């Protein structure tokens, strides 16, 4: 059966100034602009957000730590390449991938090889993500007001606020008693 879904985009969110972007999940969308909007709706309505990036999943090199262990990096690695890549690492098992830094390389594989020596995490990360700069669509500073700030002062009640279970129990008890 053919896949009827739109393409998948990974979503990276920065919640505060001077904090790195975090990979928060993915959305389906027909194009980058809609991906950005969908990312806002799925991931930003409640938490703080300063900046959102989206990038097509199929343009990201995504490898687990185990895959990296068994991987043979490209040989004769040039010192630097023409393209910019953003490298995300997940270093906490229950956590999420966090922007570790940027490398310049010719290909994604070369970027990963460069990142392995540039970012020597101990213990090694659970996952690596190499995101080409050219694949990223970003929210702009003008987006912060209408896209993100509008969600900030919404009244937000957890489901526990409504005491539904205890109210229902009390109602049933009353009914049984009467």
């Amino acid at each position, binding site marked *: 059966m053919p896949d009827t*879904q739109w393409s998948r985009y990974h979503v990276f969110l920065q919640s505060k100034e001077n904090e790195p972007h975090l990979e928060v999940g993915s959305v389906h969308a027909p194009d980058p602009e809609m991906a950005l909007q969908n990312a*806002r*709706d*799925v991931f930003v309505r409640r938490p703080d957000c300063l900046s959102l990036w989206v990038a097509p999943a199929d343009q990201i090199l995504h490898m687990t730590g185990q895959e990296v262990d068994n991987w043979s990096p490209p040989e004769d690695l040039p010192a630097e390449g023409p393209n910019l890549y953003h490298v995300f690492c997940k270093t906490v098992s229950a956590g999420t991938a966090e922007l570790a830094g940027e490398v310049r390389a010719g290909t994604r594989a070369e970027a990963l090889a460069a990142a392995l020596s540039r970012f020597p995490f101990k213990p090694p990360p659970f996952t690596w993500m190499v995101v080409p700069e050219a694949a990223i669509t970003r929210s702009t500073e003008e987006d912060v*007001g*209408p896209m993100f700030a*509008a969600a900030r002062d*919404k009244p937000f009640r957890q489901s526990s606020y409504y005491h539904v279970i205890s109210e229902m129990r009390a109602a049933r008890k009353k009914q049984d008693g009467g």
Partner: protein
Amino acid sequence: MNDPLKLALAEALLCLADDELVLGHRDSEWCGHAPIIEEDIAFANIALDEIGHAALWYREIAALRGQDRDSYPDQLIYFRLAADYCCVQLVEYPPGDWAFSMLRQYLFDSAELLRLQGLAESRHAPLAQVAQKVVREEIYHLRHTRAWITRLGLGTEESHRRMQDALDLLWTPAQQMFMPLPKEELLVEEGLLPESQPLREAWDEQVRSHLQEAGLQPPAVGEIPQSRRSHTPHLEVLLRELQSVARSDPQAEW
């Protein structure tokens, strides 16, 4: 502000509140049925925003009428008859297909944004404050629905046909949004509300140019519903559902 002026302002705000409530309810009917989960979440958010805006206006109406801000909105929403609602017919129609709902939302949002920008300058400070808050959300709504209009208008033959069909149906009812509100002349003179006619002109220019970019052609304007008290049969059906729980036990506390 003297009492007659307060009551007149409340009457005008009730029109805007009812528009938002009924449209928000219609939008919410997509919840669980939108074409893709991300859009389901997005449109449910928009539905909640519209209902939230309605709640803000109903609270202002309560204040202007000297009623309780917390309980009076529920009275207005759950215990008024269809004949006492004053929404435009545009918001009453069932959701139709996705093109219909997106286009309706777009036509409404673009009108609402213009009106809110006027209300943000209102001489009645509480009104201006609410408008300034709500305007930010409308900018976002408009961006979202506008993106859809362009994509569906320029998409496939079928998506274009559905958009044009929706436009043919919605263009005339949309004009009703700019019929003068009750006692509008007085309220405009007092600096409380923006005048509807210039809003219509600004809206028409903006919307036409965007529809044209999306390959869509507005039809000639037909007979515009004149009164906000005349409704389609759809409103009564909608309210029966919306009000059913509250009316089943009017004394219940929520």
